[in-house]
């Protein structure tokens, strides 16, 4: 990063930042209903309006906020509530592992920035850009463009929920934009047959394990889907090797 301080480099970095902003602007509708609900839930759990806003700002993780506030409202002990929220966020360890090889040259400070804003949407936007082959140009600038769009918006939605208790009519079904946006982001990333089978197996296991407490079924489904994908990859590789044809 210190090598290139030229004007051209700065311009390219700004362009990457703007690309990140644009990429994630399309995701902001999906934050509206859930952000409002989380803000309301924070106040109901006794965090106060400012506590609810602080929770959204410092955790930046909707489903764990929902679990934490639900447990606090139910009178659960503090440790149990916090640990339950953290279990919901365990999937971020998978993102952390997947993003790590993408940022091999990053400094310690930069790594902390990558970690601070790692959520479903920023992670997938980054993967998409990587697979488009644009990742070598200012990856952190793009990522921060994405993060500085989504994070303030998330905090604002939580604040409106906390202070105004605002709710959208459920008939709009705006919360359905969350799964739809994930579908739209992840489907184009499916390149190999192994990945397609991993997704199918993960989806089926996700439904079957849905009733497990605290979304722990997610981790099980992830492991199962990955194993199925590896099995398919291995079988295809063996078949290709024995018939002598390339896939």
């Amino acid at each position, binding site marked *: 990063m210190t090598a290139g301080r030229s004007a051209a480099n700065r311009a390219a970095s700004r362009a990457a930042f703007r690309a990140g902003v644009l990429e994630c602007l399309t995701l902001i509708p999906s934050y509206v209903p859930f952000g409002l609900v989380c803000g309301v839930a924070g106040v109901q759990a006794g965090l*106060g309006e400012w*506590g609810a806003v602080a929770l959204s700002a410092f955790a930046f993780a909707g489903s764990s906020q929902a679990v934490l506030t639900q447990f606090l409202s139910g009178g659960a002990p*503090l440790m149990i509530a*916090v640990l339950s929220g953290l279990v919901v966020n365990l999937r971020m360890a998978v993102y952390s592992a997947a993003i790590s090889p993408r940022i091999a040259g990053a400094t310690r400070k930069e790594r902390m920035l990558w970690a601070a804003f790692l959520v*479903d949407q920023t992670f997938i936007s980054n993967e998409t850009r990587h697979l488009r082959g644009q990742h070598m140009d200012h990856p952190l600038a793009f990522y921060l463009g994405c993060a500085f769009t989504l994070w303030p918006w998330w905090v604002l939605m939580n604040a409106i929920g906390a202070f105004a208790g605002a709710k959208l009519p459920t008939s709009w079904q705006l919360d359905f934009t969350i799964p739809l946006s994930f579908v739209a982001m992840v489907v*184009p990333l499916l390149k190999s047959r192994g*990945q397609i089978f991993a997704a199918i197996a993960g989806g089926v296991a996700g439904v079957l394990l849905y009733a497990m407490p605290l979304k722990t079924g997610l981790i099980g489904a992830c492991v199962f889907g990955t194993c199925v994908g590896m099995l398919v990859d291995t079988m295809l590789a063996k078949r290709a090797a024995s018939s002598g044809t390339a896939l």
Partner: protein
Amino acid sequence: MNWGGFGTVDGWLAIIGLAIGTFAIRYSFIGLLAGKKLPPRFERALQLAVPAIFAALVVPLILLHAGEFNLQLRWPHIVAALVTGVYAWWRGGMLISLVIGMATLHGLLWFVG
């Protein structure tokens, strides 16, 4: 004018706990594996883990109503998700995919009344 309250001490301990713990999870592999080369097998597994975990996250949100599989209530959502997926695979582009998906959902819901 509602100037807002600050809640309880326990509430703030919970906020701090969740924030620090979540950062630790996010930083885990990013920090541990800093600059290290991953075994190729592990990297291949990660490329499969990403679609697997997102499918596990998304498919229940599409299929289930209050935790139960309910085709009668959810078929418009299923069709809308399929339409979104097909369009995204064909053309890509987040905003248009989302608009098409939501339009499909509300079109179907309006159609069946």
